[in-house]
């Protein structure tokens, strides 16, 4: 039965065998997919962090939390 890679039997002359992983000719495509995923992660992190910090800062400015945190006797986490 044909396999997904260059190996169909281990009864071979190893000196003549190169790559042994499956889908040997697909590495450029796999690289592109992996690169797209990782770059997407970084872009997502930049945007999500920016929006969440902006929202959080606005919320803190308008809420009692900041006043509570600024209270002199509320420094247990500082």
């Amino acid at each position, binding site marked *: 039965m044909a396999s997904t890679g260059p190996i169909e039997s281990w009864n071979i002359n190893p000196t003549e065998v190169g790559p042994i992983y499956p889908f040997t000719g697909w*590495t450029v495509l796999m690289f592109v997919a992996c690169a797209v995923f*990782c770059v997407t992660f970084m872009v997502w992190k930049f945007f999500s*962090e920016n929006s969440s910090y902006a929202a959080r800062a606005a919320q803190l400015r308008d809420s009692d939390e900041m006043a509570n945190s600024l209270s002199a006797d509320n420094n247990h986490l500082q």
Partner: protein
Amino acid sequence: MQSMDNELTALTVIFTEFYYWVTVVMMFLIHVGFCLYEVGVSREKNKLNTLMKNAMLIPTITFSFFFFGWWLYFAVPNGPGITGGLKSAPWSEPWNELMGPHLGGKPANTRLTSADTAVWSRLNGVFWAAFLLFSWTAGSILSGAVIERIRSAAFWLLAILVGSITWVIAAAWGWSDSGWMVEKLGYHDAYASGVIHALAGGSALAILIHLGPRIGRFRDDGTPRVLPAHNTWMIVIGMFLIYTGFWGFYAACNVPIIDIVPGDTHTFFSATTIYLTPTTLSAITVNFLMALTGGLLVGYMVSRGDPFWTFQGGLGGIITASAGNDLYHPFQAFFIAVAGVWCGYKLHYWVERKFRIDDAVGAVAIHGYCGTIGIIVTGFVLWGYPSSPNAEYATITPWGQLAGAVIIFFVLGFAPCYLAAWALKKARMLRIPWEVEFVGLDHDMLMEETASRNEYIAAEREHLRTWQTKERD
């Protein structure tokens, strides 16, 4: 595949492969140590963010190092444009067959030769991983300095810049048997005082200039306030783990077994440095310990027994002596460590007060200043030694090392991160809003935790009341 058809040569190949694998596992402890150490130094309100910021540099540097960092090391030892052009290194390209499981026989890729596959099939992965762990270390050095106010995404981008680009270029130029700095300047940096530590310290300093100090760090007169660490034990255990991982770092800087005699006149197998110049594991082990000893002693002395600076002193001692620890006598390693840590400590406080630089963990001092001092001292102590087995390469000199220190600390360390941090600051993507900084980066998580705790306690009480009512009835 001539190496694997004979028990002795096969043993050498598999020993080398296993040797680097062990160093990688040991070096993993450096990162565990950095995480513990940074979280310990941070305040209670920031500890989870500090942990995640450092832990997630593992994937961000890893993917970037896989994509282009490894290739960069082999491609640019000539500059390019200084001693030659861009070099071809197909085995290090991310899509190359030698980045995956390979028996070392006939290549499928026409750009590879049989010699490439024979050499790299069993070494590419472990070499890649050893270099990657150095990259994580470079990123972690930045991480500690900037805690409690940098945005994570900005930090990871800067960590990629240092971990997968600038330190890799420094390594190609000055930490490679064919780097142009070795060839032309006689640059010598056996255990990476410069290419990792000075470079990352210079990078951290540049980022800190744009990032600014934490709120409340300095009084109006410019003197610093102490922001107490939330867990001293985490700091101490973290430092011990960094020391432990540093053993693996030292071993990984060596080639474990190779014929050191140029040409075919005779044969002599030894461990060598990355420059293929001979050394022994025995010698570097003693020097490591003597440098640690000198650093601990002077760190304790100058800080009057402060645990933080004592442990940092031990690390700074090793870093200062590392550039020449392949050849130093143990007493030389000891005194170089003493001098480096003393200077690093004094410089830290001078820079802190003069320029209001808030380096939360003293990374610029211990890595940047100690590493730079280490490179320069090597030029005097090893003056006239050959930098390479290649007789045409320049010898080690004070001016060669000084030029190397400037290139590493300022050109490759400081300048790129200064520009990148400036751009991030302009885009308002570098520092967190002051409101969030004040209440703490973990504030939302802590509030959610408190809400969850209150909810289940209320549920438990309700359950108990129901049960008591049933019992009474």
